[in-house]
């Protein structure tokens, strides 16, 4: 039995000048999944993220979310429909406190500051940042800022959460906390699409992995199969070869 | 009805003035391109150069054409000192850095105007006799004022030299590199403060050169910088922040537009043409004509 995918990109292209960053990419994400988007550097993962989030429009192709064609919708409209994202380079609101950062997210769903604050407090507890609620965002350490990114996105009550390398560069215990946070988010009913580099952490976490290489979808399937896939290994080795001969 | 002759004359004067505007603006463009700071005291640097030229002419009898290199050198030192003594601290601000540098340099502008007023009184000065002043060159039916002509020549030469320095010398590459990534540059052993100080010095020297020439045909008074400063900002923004060539092209465009506007509108509305063109350009190209930032 097939369920309607929550997210579906159909033959999506992204061209910048002469460069093709995304080449005929068609992927689906089913509700309730945790899907990993992996691939060597320059594979087009961030570009695809920006396309799904609505930060840039695709050169070609369509994007359907929750049964609706959202290709022409800007990021703000997609957020209202239920797509939230984090940024690879953390973009916290530095002049505001942690809780105020999260309130901005909650305000998508309610105009009442009181309700927004309640939601923010709940999300801060969920992401383990409640004790820092009134600290200025600028005073957080990097891993806390990452969690703030996630908290803000969760405050928008999303159906689909796009995580851009949230586990990269963390200490093992921080990464473990991050993994648990992702799992708990899914348990709350949020579908997750995450870009990651750290294979050892992400493979045990995701239900399914999609591999991009040079702008195309190279392979997709269960993590256990993907790591053994020769084309995937070749792409990563090839990356190392490319790096060495450069 | 304007005759063809008048129009050509107007455009020729506008072109010369435009090249001079480019020279005034390029120092601003250089400083901005280097460190993302808009020097709101740029007009006062011009004013300082004009007073310095005037001083040398009146006290030492040195013709502006001769004192121009001296004035430029003096302004170089002045610009570097302004960076080291004031702007350097503005760059350290952790929050609101845009506001800090705007108001720091703006405060400096007021201070310099006050000092000029204190030292020289608000009286208008002019250099009575100079090699360039008051003479015109006639090319066919067109009269080209010699000071503006000299200014235009210096401007073109300067831009040519700048192009060479920025693209072909080590120093120029260091300037570009510092702009790209000040942090990494430090690792390679290039002292960021030194590069910035030299950048400010160079920017000031360039406007100093323009000031020396302008002193031969403009009245000199404490306020004189303000109107040229605005033209300089508009020129740089029109050409696009971060582009030296943009300052050159922007200056020419501004000069021509100003001349055309003067033919159509009453003199007091002269600047409206420039402002309208700036707005039209940035509304279509939000980063100016050649801007990279």
């Amino acid at each position, binding site marked *: 039995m097939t369920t309607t995918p929550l997210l579906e990109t159909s033959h999506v292209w992204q061209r910048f000048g002469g460069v093709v960053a995304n080449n005929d990419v068609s992927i689906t994400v089913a509700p309730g999944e945790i899907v990993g988007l992996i691939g060597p550097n320059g594979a087009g993962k961030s570009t695809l993220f920006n396309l799904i989030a609505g930060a840039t429009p695709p050169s070609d192709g369509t994007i359907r979310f929750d049964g609706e064609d959202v290709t022409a919708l800007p990021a703000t409209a997609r957020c209202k429909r239920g797509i939230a994202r984090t940024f690879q380079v953390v*973009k916290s*609101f530095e*002049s505001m406190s942690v809780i105020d950062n999260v309130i901005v997210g909650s305000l998508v769903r309610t105009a009442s500051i009181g309700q927004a604050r309640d939601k923010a407090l709940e999300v801060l507890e969920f992401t383990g940042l409640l004790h820092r609620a009134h600290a200025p965002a600028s005073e957080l350490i990097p891993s806390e800022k990452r969690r703030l990114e996630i908290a803000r996105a969760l405050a928008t009550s999303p159906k689909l959460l796009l995580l851009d390398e949230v586990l990269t560069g963390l200490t093992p215990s921080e990464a473990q906390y991050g993994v648990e946070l992702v799992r708990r988010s899914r348990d709350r009913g949020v579908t997750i699409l995450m870009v990651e580099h750290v294979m050892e952490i992400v493979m045990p976490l995701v239900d399914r992995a999609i591999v991009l290489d040079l702008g195309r979808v190279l392979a997709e399937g269960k993590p256990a199969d993907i790591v053994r896939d020769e084309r995937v290994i070749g792409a990563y080795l090839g990356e190392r070869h490319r790096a060495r001969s450069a | 009805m304007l005759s063809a002759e008048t129009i050509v004359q107007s455009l020729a004067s506008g072109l010369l003035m435009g090249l001079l505007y480019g020279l005034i603006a390029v120092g601003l463009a250089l400083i901005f391109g280097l460190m993302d700071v808009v020097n709101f005291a740029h007009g006062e640097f011009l004013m300082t150069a004009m007073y310095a030229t005037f001083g040398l002419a009146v006290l030492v009898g040195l013709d502006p054409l001769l004192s121009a290199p001296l004035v430029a050198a003096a302004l170089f030192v002045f610009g570097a000192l302004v960076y080291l003594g004031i702007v350097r601290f503005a760059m350290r601000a*952790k929050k*609101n850095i845009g506001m800090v540098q705007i108001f720091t340099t703006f405060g400096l502008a007021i201070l310099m105007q006050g000092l000029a007023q204190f030292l020289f*009184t608000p009286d208008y000065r002019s250099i009575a006799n100079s090699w360039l002043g008051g003479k015109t060159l006639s090319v066919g039916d067109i009269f080209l004022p010699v000071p503006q002509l000299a200014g235009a020549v210096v401007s073109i030469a300067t831009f040519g030299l700048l192009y060479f320095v920025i693209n072909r010398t080590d120093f120029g590459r260091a300037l570009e590199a510092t702009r790209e990534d000040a942090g990494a540059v430090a690792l390679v052993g290039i002292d960021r403060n030194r590069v910035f100080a030299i950048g400010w010095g160079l920017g000031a020297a360039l406007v100093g050169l323009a000031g020396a020439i302008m002193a031969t045909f403009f009245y000199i008074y404490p306020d004189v910088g303000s109107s040229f400063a605005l033209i300089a900002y508009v020129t740089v923004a029109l050409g696009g922040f971060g582009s030296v060539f943009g300052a050159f092209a922007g200056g020419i465009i501004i000069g021509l537009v100003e001349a055309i506007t003067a033919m159509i509108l009453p003199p007091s509305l002269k600047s409206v043409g420039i402002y309208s063109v700036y707005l039209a350009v940035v509304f279509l190209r939000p980063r100016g004509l050649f801007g990279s930032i």
Partner: protein
Amino acid sequence: MDAASFAQGRFREFMLAVLLVAGVATLPLFVKDVYIQNILVLTLMYAALSQSWNILGGYCGQISLGHALYFGLGAYTTALLFTKFGVLPWFGMLGGGLIAALIALALGYPCFRLRGHYFVIATIVIAETAYLLFLNWDWAGAALGVDMPVRLDSWVTFQFARSKLPYFYFALMLAFVTWIVTWAFENSKWGYWWRAVKDNADAAESLGVVVFHSKMAAAAVSAFFTAVGGSFYAQFVAYIDPGSVMSFQFSLLIALPAVLGGIGTLWGPALGAAVLIPLTELTRSYVGGTGKGIDLIVYGMLVISVALARPDGIVGLFARRRRARASA
């Protein structure tokens, strides 16, 4: 800090403002010197103007150095409606505010596409254009401006020949109103959106904030109150011309108290005006008359030192104490 103590803090803030206003309102009992009363009126006016500017510049992060446009529009609307058509200044004030708000929206449409310095220069250039146009507009008095002779003292026509007190109370009320407006917006979705847009427009968009609408709203509110301040000024000085109400220097003077006191803060503009305006006026009268430019030298050094030493403004000095109390 839970919701209850937060609401308490808000209430306390409001009461503090009420107390301050009440205190300032009693000043005329002690201060009889007309010259000092004049300084007080100007201080209050600049507090209101800077507070209005702060909404767009401080909270929303869109630095306008062309706000004299709205001030001048307010002043001219009131003055022209009064002298040409006999319209009472109270209506002129409202009209001026609405016109300014509409123009801010019309300008915002193209201008808010611009970022950083391009935007700032656009604001300067637009205000300068308006200044030049008014300078050449004969119907509006061109360079000579508009003269509003005071015929009789009256609240109806809001004109008082001798006493400064009515103007004082109006300016105080205007300063209070702009403070309340800022205070109210601070804890509203607009306030949160503005600050998000200021800090990081891309992140704000990803969280559903329509950046463009936010900027437009801030611009309209800011322009409205700035224009009301301009209308007030016209009534206060009874004579306006382009140089006094639409110049670039004025645009800077509107922004400066906010920068000095603390840009993007609730109390910053008022604090900054309280320090800056008396200092400026006193310097000008004791020193400026000589034409020696000493007032400019002092003023320039003041601006530099404030911008460098305390980029958070005067408010920054108090912020640390308040934060420590909040996390307790």
